[in-house]
């Protein structure tokens, strides 16, 4: 398998895992919490690195899950207990955690092969070079691709088994509570998944661009359908398509791959935003016109 394929596959896996979770994030009006978590995992990553002494995946994932839950918890604490308005609470908490992460990175710079650049850009270029050395057929796959695959399946399984819970707590939390489904538990499950996906993706696409993969495919799909299942499928499609397109753009311009993937995402979003059949800016006009034409026709008959 070629070098290009692995990179595109990495992008597609990141995009798909993010897109699936992103659908629930935007439906819950929590897009900015996704942004907050993607910044806030930084200290978790650094601390996990310092404790375990390596970039091994298990401590990282634990660190991420813990810090993700802490972030949501802190935001809730500040906005509920100290009565700060929600948007400011989000801004305050994630900038603080990010600052702590950057400072830790600087202090322990000589102890770790992780720097601020990696946080921003990710190292998707090196993904195909980082192989296992177990002597079995596993060596054939890049390490990151395998990990991303696992996480992707975790997300899929979580959504399959928890579909009902996620859906009910998303659309009607009060009803959920009345039939004995804890909105809080599903909230924290979602946050944990988001943090895990963020941490795994961050090494390949960079912390901040994870936000793009979380929000943009989901938002694009949201403009195209009213059916949640279709929305999930479309968002994955958009994610995969943009990682292919992004890779093409990046090689053509010799530029940052995750950056180009985001640009592709933005482009797809723009097209859908303008032309989506029912909810696009121009599509809406067309749709309305067709509808009123039909009405007129029916009236004449």
């Amino acid at each position, binding site marked *: 398998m070629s070098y290009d394929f692995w990179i595109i596959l990495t992008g597609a896996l990141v995009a798909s895992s993010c897109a699936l979770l992103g659908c629930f994030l935007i439906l819950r009006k929590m897009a900015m919490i*996704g942004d907050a978590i993607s910044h806030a995992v930084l200290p978790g990553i650094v601390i996990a690195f310092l404790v375990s002494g390596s970039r091994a995946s298990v401590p990282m994932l634990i660190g991420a899950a813990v810090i993700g839950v802490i972030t949501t918890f802190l935001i809730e604490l500040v906005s509920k207990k100290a009565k700060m308005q929600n948007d*400011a609470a989000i801004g305050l908490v994630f900038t*603080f955690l990010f*600052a702590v992460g950057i400072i830790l990175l600087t202090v322990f710079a000589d102890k770790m092969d992780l720097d601020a650049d990696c946080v*921003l850009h990710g190292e998707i270029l090196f993904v195909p070079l980082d192989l296992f050395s177990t002597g079995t057929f596993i060596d054939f796959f890049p390490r990151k691709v395998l990990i991303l695959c696992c996480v992707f399946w975790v997300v899929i399984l979580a959504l399959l088994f928890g579909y009902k819970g996620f859906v009910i707590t998303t659309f009607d939390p009060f009803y959920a509570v009345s039939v004995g489904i804890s909105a809080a538990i599903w909230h924290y499950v979602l946050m944990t998944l988001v943090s895990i996906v963020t941490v795994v993706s961050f090494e390949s696409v960079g912390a901040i*661009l994870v936000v793009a993969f979380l929000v*943009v495919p989901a938002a694009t799909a949201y403009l195209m359908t009213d059916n949640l299942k279709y929305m999930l499928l479309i968002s994955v499609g958009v994610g995969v398509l943009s990682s292919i397109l992004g890779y093409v753009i990046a090689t053509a311009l010799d*530029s940052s791959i995750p950056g180009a993937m985001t640009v592709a995402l933005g482009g797809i979003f723009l097209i859908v935003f303008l032309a989506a059949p029912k909810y696009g800016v121009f599509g809406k006009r067309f749709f309305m016109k067709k509808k009123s034409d039909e009405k007129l026709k029916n009236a004449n008959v």
Partner: protein
Amino acid sequence: MKELLEFLSLSNANVRFVVLGVVLLGASTAVVGCFTFLRKKSLVGDAVAHSVLPGICLAFIFTQVKNPLVLLLGAFISGWLSILSIDIINKKSRLKADTAIAIVLSVFFGIGIMLLGYIQSTGNAAQAGVDRFLFGQAAALVGNDVLVLGIVCVILMLSVWLLFKEFKILSFDAEFAQSLGFPVRTIEFILSTLTVLAIAVGIQAVGVVMMAAMLITPAAAARYWTNKLSVMILLAAIFGSLSGLFGSYISYTAPKMPTGPWIIIAITFIAFISMSFAPERGFYAKWYRKKQKVKSTMDENLLKVFFHLGESQNDLNQSRTLTELQERRYFSENLMRASLKRLARKSLVQPNNSEWQLSEKGIVEAKRIAKLHRLWEMYMSTFLKIPPDHVHEGAESLEHFFTPQLEAMLEEELNFPQTDPHDKPIPYNKTAANEL
């Protein structure tokens, strides 16, 4: 200590530039941030901060020089475009505001990262330093940068001072402003422009992510201390510049340390102190008030027990043992002892051997509380038509929240009834002597 003095004396020209720049920046972004905070648009500030990156990169690609003014212009334009895009997505589609912000933030930033990658791959010698916009490096501020910073800060402060009334009314009640004939769109435009300007100028000192905190956190912290906008702005400016000072001091003593994150640590610390200890709105003050209320409620309930015992035996002056009180209404012994001690301190009760007795003052107070309870029961059954067997619960909690004015109004409204819905006499203090 010596380092601190050296730092504060500003004898080193470099230090002077950095300190001046960061303090000015901290103050002026905090001032603008107050308005974005009050308009609940704090996260738009975050989006703008991320979105200036492509503008900076494009300005650099076109001019190939690192002129602070040119870069500022590029940052300004793309920052403005991002605000516009958020607005359009918000208005023209069914996506919610937060999604719109997240989309614009990440896509603009992605474009920026792509352009940055392109600049780095061209290997231009002057490119070193364009990426310092990401994390900021206040220590690298030179004379020119500080001059631009200073000019922008003066513009910001002056505009806020001149348009204070307009900004204020826009932040608190935009619809009212519109109805008064204020040009709301224009004021909004100016305010957004100032916000973008503040962010664009601050990026190179503190970096993209930290910029959001410079905007949000000082305002959020200041809000805890006051309800007055002018005081809030002043406080936010002080908080902003203090943390700027702290951040640049850390960078001065440890040159490898990035300035931005330390500024954020300082300002978050200030915010934490504010939300914990500010009088009125602070967490601790609220907790303390609640605790006091629990105590005074307990005291009032105990006085009422004295009254009820006295009423049933027609002798309010009788001393009571703890068990006697507990039999009437159960409180744990510890709670009762603590409460009696407080009441004794206010000389409402007095100890009598191992028993307790209401004082003259205590009788008056106990009657007042019993009266409030019964009056309130009366009110609920007369005006709210609640059946008499349901009124006790409500009265039990509300009797502790009456002010003297409310008390007088209630008496008047009910026209001084003699009995409550359960036909118990209402103990007015004026007639106390005659009745008992």
